[in-house]
């Protein structure tokens, strides 16, 4: 049997769990994108699918340029980002402390678990009519949809992180003079910080996915609104643009949280 080192780089890439060179990683990622865009070009420029249903890439790029130039894209993007960020921040500000106490104190868990697990499985969309009735149509309603979609998921995941703090870490803190009432502040919060930031990173992605639901009804701006409006005019290129924009914004917030984690929790690899 030949030594691993004698094999070609491509063969080495198929050894389970083995690290691959950065260049190869980038090449593989780019290849899949090229395949998707190539397929898209083939389907559209080859005339296999009418432009009404699937616009060619060139048209989407041209539309993007036009909507960037006249400020339309920026307006809708900002409106959406505002909804997602307000909703996500309000949700997180409450979910992080409540979740930490829920995972640390069995009484808090016993009180909240049954209700939270019931609500957690309800589809967000089913509450949209209710929110419109209660809150009306406006920014508040859209923000509420985002909060409803993220809060209960965050709560359960953060409580789990708090429950997983090693018991002897807390015991060690007690033997060093930490008061029981200060356990969350001195131990649970710092111990779970990397996990909490990971949970926020994952859930901010979910917040973006609820955006279109939030803007389905009663929005006058935003990427979801832009998309729905475009549907009525058969402007599939604009729908594509809105979808791409949500993806890009999701990617930016994701990277933002990765950066934040490296900055505030440098001890955790």
């Amino acid at each position, binding site marked *: 049997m030949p030594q691993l080192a004698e094999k070609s780089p491509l063969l080495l890439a198929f050894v389970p769990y083995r690290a691959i060179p950065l260049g190869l990683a980038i090449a593989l990622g780019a290849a899949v994108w090229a395949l998707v865009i190539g397929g898209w070009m083939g389907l559209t420029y080859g005339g296999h699918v009418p432009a009404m249903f699937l616009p060619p890439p060139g048209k989407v790029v041209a539309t993007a340029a036009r909507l960037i130039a006249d400020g339309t894209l920026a307006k809708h993007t900002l409106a959406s980002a505002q909804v997602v960020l307000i909703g996500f921040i309000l949700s997180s500000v409450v979910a992080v402390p409540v979740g930490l106490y829920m995972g640390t104190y069995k009484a808090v868990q016993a009180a909240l678990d049954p209700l939270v697990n019931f609500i957690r499985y309800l589809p967000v969309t089913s509450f949209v009519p209710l929110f419109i009735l209660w809150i009306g149509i406006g920014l508040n309603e859209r923000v509420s949809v985002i909060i409803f979609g993220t809060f209960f998921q965050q709560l359960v995941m953060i409580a789990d992180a708090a429950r997983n703090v090693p018991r002897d870490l807390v*015991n060690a803190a007690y*033997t*060093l*003079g930490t008061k029981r009432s200060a356990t969350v502040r001195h*131990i649970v919060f710092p111990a779970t910080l990397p996990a909490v930031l990971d949970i926020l990173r994952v859930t901010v992605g979910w917040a973006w996915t609820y955006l279109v639901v939030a803007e389905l009804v009663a929005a006058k701006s935003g990427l979801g609104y832009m998309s729905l409006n475009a549907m009525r005019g058969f402007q599939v290129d604009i729908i594509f643009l809105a979808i791409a924009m949500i993806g890009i914004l999701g990617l930016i917030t994701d990277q933002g949280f990765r950066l934040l984690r490296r900055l505030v929790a440098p*001890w955790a690899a």
Partner: protein
Amino acid sequence: MTSSADITVTDVTLRYGSGAKTVLALDGLSLDVRPNEFAVIVGPSGCGKSSLLYLIAGLEDLTGGTITVGGQPVAGPGPDRGMVFQSYTLFPWLTVAQNVEYGPRRRGLAEDDRKQLVDHYLTEVGLAAFANHYPAQLSGGMKQRVAIARALANDPAVLLMDEPFGALDSQTRHTMQRLLLRVWDHAKKTVLFVTHDIEEAILLADRVFVMSGRPGQIRKVLTVDFARPRVGDIVLDPAFIAMKRDIMGLLRSDEDEA
């Protein structure tokens, strides 16, 4: 600034669970550790020797009996009883220096005094150069050395050690034993050390408490009077080997009964 106290455990019973699933972990166990003494408990796994340590630390509640440290009955955990655990319990979000100053900071000590303590104890365990490292950057042996420094910097009356070197390789373990004896000699603390390693017990102890299997009781107390410092080849001394054989016999007869 050093304080040191005695530990008195009287007729302690520990029962887990309820009903038919009740487990009697400790049954009327008594022992005394004198001020400044290095006492070691050896026993078969599952005999409740770690539980006893957790009871003295106040981290578990006893079912019956009394425990006093320095004459004070134990009621919950407190900084007068420092503890080094078998698992690594350094706070990963704090640097080595910040870990060591954690206890003094909780006590509200001024920054200058804290810095002095950190310097002293990190030098004591030979890790002054690693003050600004995070625990994740340290080896297992280094982590336990910091844990010892962290416990001592808080100036506890007694130091409880629950198989602190159990996860280390034998080379590191021997280094750690020598280091611990040196640190103990300087700090003059009461130490209660739990292990299942008989050689480690004799090497470290003033007295060895041999425990029986579940339910845990003290089977025999042996006084170890080898002169200190005990050098490496003492383990080959016939008297050392005889004592080792004694303890092995005690532990084995227990296995046979089980």
